[in-house]
Structure formats: structure tokens, C-alpha cells
């Protein structure tokens, strides 16, 4: 069902947890559909220096959350905004078709965290 990479990220998820003083926080999903992802970022000089997540959801939800944190660390905000859900799935060697829509939302959570950061900057 899942690729080895998905199972690796599900079993040993990178960057699980919270950040004490995040620059931005983003959350997507709800309990009705069965997936909730919460993403925390720290941005310094326009670069994402730290990122953590908490996820309620299936194997794909946890693995995509973990993968997006790996992909984004050290990237500029602009680069981070270009990371798509599809790119995350590809980095995991693909997801089962049924999971492509419902559990592949980690990039969205990241983007929301960035929006939150940008909103705070603007205010």
C-alpha cells in the first residue's frame, strides 16, 4: 500500500512537536474528515530555520507532515511557498490514489503557517 519512504516517515517522523515561540502557526483539516495537521515555523532573515508539526490522521497524513518539514528547513519563505502537496507526495515516492486528496495537505498547513507569519509581520 504505502511506499517504504512513507513507512519510514510514519515510523520515524522528523520534527514532531511544538515550538515555544513560533513565527507562525498553521492548521488544516478537521476531525470530521479525519485529518488535522498543525505546523509551527520559526523564520529568521526570511529563512525558515525551524519547523515542527503535530498531526492527527492516517499514515499518509503523518508521513506527509514529516516530509514537508524536511523539505522546508533552510528554505526562504518564497521557496517554501512553492512547495506543493504534489511535490511532497513525490518526495515520498508517491501515495496510494485514495490518499492523494484526503491526507495530502501538509504543504497547505505549511503555507498557512507562512501566511500567519506574514500577517504578524504586516501588523
Amino acid at each position: 500500500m504505502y511506499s517504504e519512504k512513507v513507512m519510514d516517515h510514519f515510523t520515524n517522523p522528523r520534527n514532531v512537536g511544538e515550538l515555544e515561540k513560533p513565527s507562525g502557526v498553521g492548521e488544516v483539516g478537521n476531525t470530521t474528515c479525519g485529518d488535522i495537521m498543525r505546523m509551527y515555523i520559526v523564520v529568521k532573515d526570511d529563512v525558515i530555520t525551524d519547523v515542527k508539526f503535530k498531526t492527527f490522521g492516517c499514515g499518509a497524513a503523518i508521513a506527509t507532515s514529516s516530509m514537508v518539514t524536511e523539505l522546508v528547513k533552510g528554505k526562504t519563505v518564497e521557496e517554501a511557498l512553492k512547495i506543493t502537496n504534489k511535490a511532497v507526495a513525490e518526495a515520498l515516492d508517491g501515495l496510494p490514489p485514495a490518499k492523494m486528496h484526503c491526507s495530502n495537505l501538509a504543504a497547505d498547513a505549511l503555507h498557512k503557517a507562512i501566511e500567519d507569519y506574514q500577517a504578524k509581520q504586516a501588523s
Partner: protein
Amino acid sequence: MRKVYLDHSATTPVHSEVVKTINYYLTEAWGNPSSIHSVGRRAKKGLEEAREKVAAVIGAKPEEITFTSGGTESDNMAIIGGAYARQKKGNHLITTQVEHHAVLDSFKNLEKNGFEVTYLPVDEEGLISVDEFRESIKDSTILVSMMHVNNEIGTIQPIEEVGAITKEKGILFHVDAVQSYGKIPVDVNKLNVDMLTASSHKIYGPKGSGCLYIRKGVRIPSFTHGGAQEKKRRPGTENMPGIVGFGKAAEIVGQELESEMKRLTALRDKLTKGIEENISDIRINGHRTKRLPGNVNISFRYIEGESLLLSLDMKGVAASSGSACTSGSLDPSHVLLAIGLSHEIAHGSLRMTLGRDNTEEDIDYVLKVLPEIVTRLRSMSPLYQRKEACQQKECYEHVQ
């Protein structure tokens, strides 16, 4: 690593004696039972012996058993066939909200074709109300279909009481006994059922084989059209390996019924108690006592079922869940929603169904690995995080 299979309601390992029987009919008695030569006659004998064995478990006559390709086909045949057979008398049908999809989707199909269906609700423990059932009967009611044991939460419905009512009113009564046949006592005469579904692969027989009990005198249209097999009720060359395997399996579960019920009830209660004592924020689903001996169904708040299953699987434990991610649809199990669970809690459900290969040590092992897994997944969950935050600040309103 220890392997613990706790998914016997999904399917069972095939009993070694069943494998032997199947092999005999694959290698020695492989004929077509319709052939009149000796090769065919040998197969025919096996076919009829299997019919006797399958019938004996439920107190039926062999000629009342029609072999099918499994529980799904039997349910379709009984419900759709039964409805059309009686359509001159009325168009109202009754079932419950917690049936298997093979039953529910047969009714959905009938609804599209002009039948009216009442889906009886269930209480928090999954039981229908007999009074409510009685009140739902109309003059136009022609067929009732109700499952004996629920495949998810293990609750046992009051079939005997329902059967007494349908018999009195002359309404056709079908029971989906896929999860009770060979597991708890089932007697077609005591229960007053007209048709009953059983499936081989839930009782240590092969998959793709089942039967429909049809009481003598009850007429329904044939399910397939073609040859003269199964008295023309179910044409098609007989699934000999499936049928003889089902027969052997029926014989064995029939013999072991009483002792297995006792043993599995004890294991089930040990597992349930162990979880209750060691893990917080859980909900036991289904009725506590009117319950299949081997069924444990528990919801773990703040985590999702598929993650739980995958984590258990990596520890060698096979189970299942009513989570949407494993149900093949976007919603979590209709059964868990019907007993009043919220989506979130339904998503976090775990079904462990025990069988003849399980031991005390298996249960000890599960009680060791499960709490660790639940803790780990909760530590990753934003819902659990919020709950803890809230408890510190006493701000329950944020808890979803």
C-alpha cells in the same frame, strides 16, 4: 517478532483439516458434479456431504442450503430476490442502520426501484428496539432483514423475538448470520427465520464460498440464469474447493462451538479489562454482554485508526478500524455513527476480533504494545495537545 492475528471478523486462517479436504477435491475428486461418469459422481458425493455439514450447524435440512459465492451474494439473493418474489403483496421493507454494506446496498438498490425501506436505528450499545420494530411494520411490509451479530461492534440482536413477530405476521425474514454462524448457537427453527446467510471464510474455511439457507416452501427467483446446479436456484459450475472447505469448516466449528465460546469470552474480557486499566480516554463500543465472544471494539480519543493499525502491524498485531481511511469511503463506519459516536471518536476506533489460534500470551503481548503505541500517537496529535493545554487552563470549550 510475535505475530498476533486479531482480525477474525475480517477473515480467518484456513484450518489445516480444511486445507486437507480442499486438497483431496483438487487432486483426487476434481470432477464436475454434474457429470454422470464416475469422476463426476465422486465430486457430487463431496458436494452433498458438504451440504449436510453446513445444514447441521443451524438445524436445517440439507436441501434447504443453496451454496453461493459468499455472504455478499447470499445477502443480495435473499433481499433482492425476496422483495421481488413478494412485490405483489406490498413494497415496504425493514432493516437496520447497522447492517453490513452487502445488506444496506441491496436495500439501496431496491429503493431506486420503487421499494420503501425503513432503517431501524439502534441504541448506544447497538441494539434495535423490538417495540420500535413492531411499530414500523405496515400492511405493505413484505420482508425484514436483520443481522444476528454486528461485524464491527459484536452486538447480538434479539433475532428470536423479531422472528416470532415476522412469523405471526407472515412477513419474510432474512438474517445475515455471517458473524454468528458457527460462533454462537444459531437454530433456524428456534429463531423462526426464512432465509439465513453464512460465509465460509469467517469460520476457518476458504474465501469466496457461502450459503443461503432457504426454508422449505419459500420461493425466490434464481440469482443467476443458466444450468441446473443448486436446483436451478444458483446455476453455474459449483465452487467445489470452496464448498467442501466450507463443509469441513462447518463440521469443525460445530464441534468446538461451546468450548470456543467460553475460551474466547474469557480472552475478550481480559483484553478489554487490560485496556480499560491502562489507557485513558477510551470508549468501549457495543453491548457489554450481548456480544460476540471474540469481539473487542474500543475508540481511543485523539488518535486516528489507520495510524493505530499500521503501528500495531509493525509490532506484529493485525486488527482493523472503523476509520474512514480504512472503510473505503470518506466517512467513518456507519455503525459507529449509528451508536452515537462523533466523527473524531469513530475515526479512532480499533476492532480486535479473536479466534481459535489466539492464546493468553497473545493478549498479554497486545496489552504490552498497545499502550505504548497509543501514547506515541497521542504525543503527535494536535487534539491531545489541545486537550492537555485546556485541562491546565480549565478551558474545556476548546476541546472539539
